[in-house]
């Protein structure tokens, strides 16, 4: 599903964000990515959804090679991804419901299904009562949960959640982790970055990636 061979990422300003990344992620995998701030967690997710391209090495996601000149293919790939951005990237001036629905409007879904999926996802993250609020009026924790609802409502093949519990209290955080992990059942690969190591479960079959300064250490067990 995601295959990386000797991938490095160097930004324009010469920052070497990731070095020699080799990994293979399968459908239904649960992947925890940890590491201190600035270690390269977000950069890795950016590669997975084609926001950045590998400086060297080969990266394919769901059969799509991530590299320059593949704009159309990468755009298509993103429709199969449920992204939770660290800074949420909600659309201002729209309601909570509208934000979640917008993520599904170009997936060929029927209007009724879009509405139902959005309402269901919002109920699950505990925001069923905020559907008609404008997103700019939400607290950080609420906004984060809208971002999560938008990502999961579209039933993606890959969930890329960048510090999805960063602004949540413990109970909410545990709940969100459970929701994200539940998508494994439908063969979705669930990839979560966090520096809150206490939230990381002890699933025997999970994959644990530790990043230090752009270097990955991968374990199949914690």
């Amino acid at each position: 599903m995601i295959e990386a061979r000797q991938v490095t990422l160097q930004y324009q300003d010469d920052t070497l964000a990731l070095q020699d990344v080799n990994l293979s992620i399968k459908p239904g995998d649960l992947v925890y990515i940890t590491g201190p701030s600035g270690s390269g967690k977000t950069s890795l997710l950016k590669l997975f959804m084609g926001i950045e391209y590998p400086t060297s090495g080969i990266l394919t996601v769901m059969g799509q090679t991530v590299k320059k000149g593949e704009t159309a293919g990468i755009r298509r790939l993103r429709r199969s991804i449920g992204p939770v951005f660290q800074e949420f990237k909600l659309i201002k001036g729209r309601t909570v419901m509208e934000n979640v629905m917008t993520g599904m409007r170009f997936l060929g879904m029927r209007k009724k299904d879009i509405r139902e999926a959005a309402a269901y996802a919002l109920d699950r993250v505990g925001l069923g009562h905020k559907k008609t609020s404008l997103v700019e009026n939400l607290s950080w924790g609420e906004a984060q949960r809208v971002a999560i609802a938008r990502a999961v409502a579209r039933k993606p093949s890959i969930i890329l959640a960048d510090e999805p519990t960063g602004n949540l209290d413990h109970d909410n955080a545990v709940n969100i982790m459970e929701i994200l992990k539940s998508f494994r059942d439908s063969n979705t690969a669930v990839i979560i970055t966090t520096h809150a190591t206490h939230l990381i479960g002890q699933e025997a079959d999970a994959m644990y990636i530790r990043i230090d300064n752009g270097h990955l250490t991968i374990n199949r067990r914690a």
Partner: protein
Amino acid sequence: MKSFFRNFGYYLSETWKIIRLNLASNIVSVLGTALILFLFGLVMAGSGIGSRLVAMLNEEAEISAYFDEEVTVKEAQALVDYTEKLDGVRSARLVSEEEARDRMKEILGEEASILELFEDNPFEAYMEIRIYMDSMEAVMKRVQDLEGISYVRDNREVLDQVERLTGALRIMGLLMTLAVGFTTFIIISHMIRQGIYNNREQINTLRLLGAPNGFIGIPYVIAGLLLTIVGGALASLGISVLIVKAYSGMQGTLPFIPLPPRTELTGYINLLIISVSFLLGFFGSLFGLSSIRNDGSGR
């Protein structure tokens, strides 16, 4: 196409948000577009009337032949009868001195009283010959050579003048069309660019979610179309009012100008303005949309 209709409500509400975000400058753009299209309509109406006039004058080509002094009324009538049978002549008629004077009276209208100053009728009888335009030369030559005809006058001068005027109007129309096209195009594509710039964050997010460019761009195209068409509608309204006013005015003062039927003219101008604004709105917004592609992040 199916997804276009499925998302139609969404597109319209996005369109409204795009327009509202920059309402004041969008209103100014619409008024500017309306003014430009109004001027365009005006020139097109003028050249439409001119072309029709030329066509009519061409059809109604007419020459006047004046008799030698010693020709009697009887001889004159014989000349008329002869001329009538010539090739290229539609009809020939004798206009008597009295009729000539009456005609001038009519043209002069209120100033006709100056004719009272003449003791004798200053007008002479002549032959009015209506001919087919393409045989103008030949007929003139034949009539000129007839015994008893002193000279022949044609209305080509008038025709030439009207034709020149119409030609100028047509060129102006063409230049105007180019100017209108160019200006409206710039206004609209700038408006769209502005909208895209203001919404760059949202556009970037949509791309990250995998939205196709069509999905992202359609509300902008609808916005551009809507604004130009509103401009066009305002222009049409203005032109229609003006034409109605002008027609009722002209009927009093210039009764001899053969104007096209009013509804025909307004219909033609309105159709022209609306289709021009539709095309410009569509292509202007598409052009403006091209700036979506090169704004860097989000790929």
